[in-house]
């Protein structure tokens, strides 16, 4: 896909190729970040609209996937911040997709992880999802969030600590 894009950056055909190649990945990213499938579809659609308007500025096809991911992340981050309440509300009533889908079959630890993920701060959730869903390195996450690598490392550290605390607490509970 990347090699195809090299000759097409800035062109309509190049943008179509990028979107078709990355649509599933963008949707998965938005779905985990937002925890809501319907909103994830809206977010991806809006992100593609934004990307289309500024596609002409992209000169390097190799960077295009990261560029598109960043727009999706920004769109999701904006939506989460607008939600804001979401965080407190989700603690009491976790989002359906993230929390209830397989709760019956999942272990207590996995349920605790889902709950803890749902109430992570916006920035922490973004780095965790990019790390564990897309297997990105710290630098690659930095490219998609526009934050320094040191900030990414710090956010990952704190996010993992929160998630680990939830996981350990559930594990202790299960051992009783």
């Amino acid at each position: 896909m990347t090699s195809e894009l090299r000759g097409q950056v800035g062109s309509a055909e190049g943008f179509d190729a990028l979107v078709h190649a990355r649509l599933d990945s963008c949707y998965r990213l938005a779905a985990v970040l937002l925890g809501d499938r319907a909103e994830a579809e809206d977010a991806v659609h809006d992100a593609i609209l934004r990307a289309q308007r500024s596609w002409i500025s992209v000169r390097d096809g190799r960077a295009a996937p990261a560029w598109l991911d960043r727009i999706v992340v920004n769109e999701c981050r904006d939506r989460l911040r607008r939600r804001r309440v979401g965080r407190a509300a989700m603690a009491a009533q976790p989002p359906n997709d993230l929390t209830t889908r397989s709760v019956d079959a999942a272990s207590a630890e996995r349920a605790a992880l889902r709950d803890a993920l749902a109430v992570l701060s916006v920035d922490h959730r973004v780095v965790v999802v990019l790390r564990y869903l897309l297997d990105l390195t710290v630098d690659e996450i930095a490219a998609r969030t526009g934050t320094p690598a040191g900030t990414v490392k710090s956010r990952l550290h704190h996010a993992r600590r929160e998630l680990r605390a939830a996981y350990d607490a559930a594990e202790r509970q299960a051992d009783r």
Partner: protein
Amino acid sequence: MTMSGDDRFEREMRSVIREAGSSGASPELRERVAATLTVRPVQPAPSGVGWPLVAAAGVAIVLAAVVLRPQPISTALPPAASTASDQVGVGSAVAATAATEIPGPMQHPGEVQTGQLLTATDGVVINTAGSILTTHDGGATWFDVTPSAHYGASTEHDVERVFFLDPQHGWFATYDVGSPDGLMIWRTYDGGTGWTGQPMPGLRAVNWQLGFVTPTVGWLATDPGGESPKPELRMTTNSGDTWTDPIDLIAATGRSTLEQIAFLDGQHGVMTGDNLLLFTSDAGRTWSPAYVGATDYNVVEGTPRYGAVHVISAQKAFVVVDWLDPQGRTRGQTILETFDGGGVWASRYSDARHRFWDFIDESHWVAVDDEWVASTTDGASWGASTWTGLPAGLSSAVLQFADPMHGWAEVAGGTACPGGSGDGTGLCAGAAVVPMLFKTIDGGSTWSPVGDCDPASSNGFACPSPMPS
């Protein structure tokens, strides 16, 4: 905690997240996207209002955007004269201007995500919309000083950080992944009334740090990220009109990642990170391990993580060391102090707690943990009280005190744990707070949000009513 426990946690974490993201785009979304792709937006021609789209080969363009408040009206700065002979000619050519009148003072800055307290009454914040706002009356009124050409030029440039040396002199940088324009550096000499934007053509900088020790002397550290890390350092002595040739930080330090850098003056700088404390006395060309005197290892032990450098003067600075256990949790802290610009550090204070610190000057320190605020005027005797107004379970905070009474705290990631976590971290699973900025005018005893406060998301602290000014 055993390795198998760590492995199991990692595996479960990955599995849970991938399970949540296991489905691809639905047919309905594909149809919506396909419909979007068939409608091509009209690409606007370059408007010429403040965006350097036409650049002759080898000619860098300086972009100036003038944002006009109702009063006073000010023009962009003239470029300062270059004085360094070893500086390259970035930003030495054409200037363009754009002017936009912005609304008068606002009562609220919106939802604030980060900020910098400059004096007891002057501050600058970035809200969640990416706007830069300043206050000169302790937060009673705010001015949106975002350079308008910045947003007119690109929709994907998010302003996430600004650096203000004082209420007048400020800088920030933007970088758009995939754009050929390179890093763009913006500066103001009049508190945001006028901005000058300077492109750094071809400079890829997914990660960057920008700082100044005087209005003219500063540093720029960059890293293109990706699979080929190339951290570099550039210095300026003329406000950023020109920069030195890049210093290869991999060659100079052996580190392939861009670590935290701070300069105390134009020559002396410090680099900090995990198990890393380096200093330079030649403007970053060479770096050496700093000497650290004896630390009270009876109080704290583990792997040292050297935090941000709190610069007090050209000779004096403080660094907070977090001592990490094998699980990466902070088990205690040491305050290090240097008197020689970063070469030699002495331990001033150690404690088996995890606090967040600010150093107002040589003698006034402030520390906040999840319950107490403490301050000292000599590093030995302390006064302390419990605080109110910050989120319960405070686990992350950046403190900035302009004087012993006036301070801001940027708070993120707190988790409420009424019964205690039981694992020594003070943390537990539960609702976390939205990153927010808080202020105090009584030395940290009481805090209130800077910016809008939504009771529904305040998670454990009460939004003041009416909103504080």
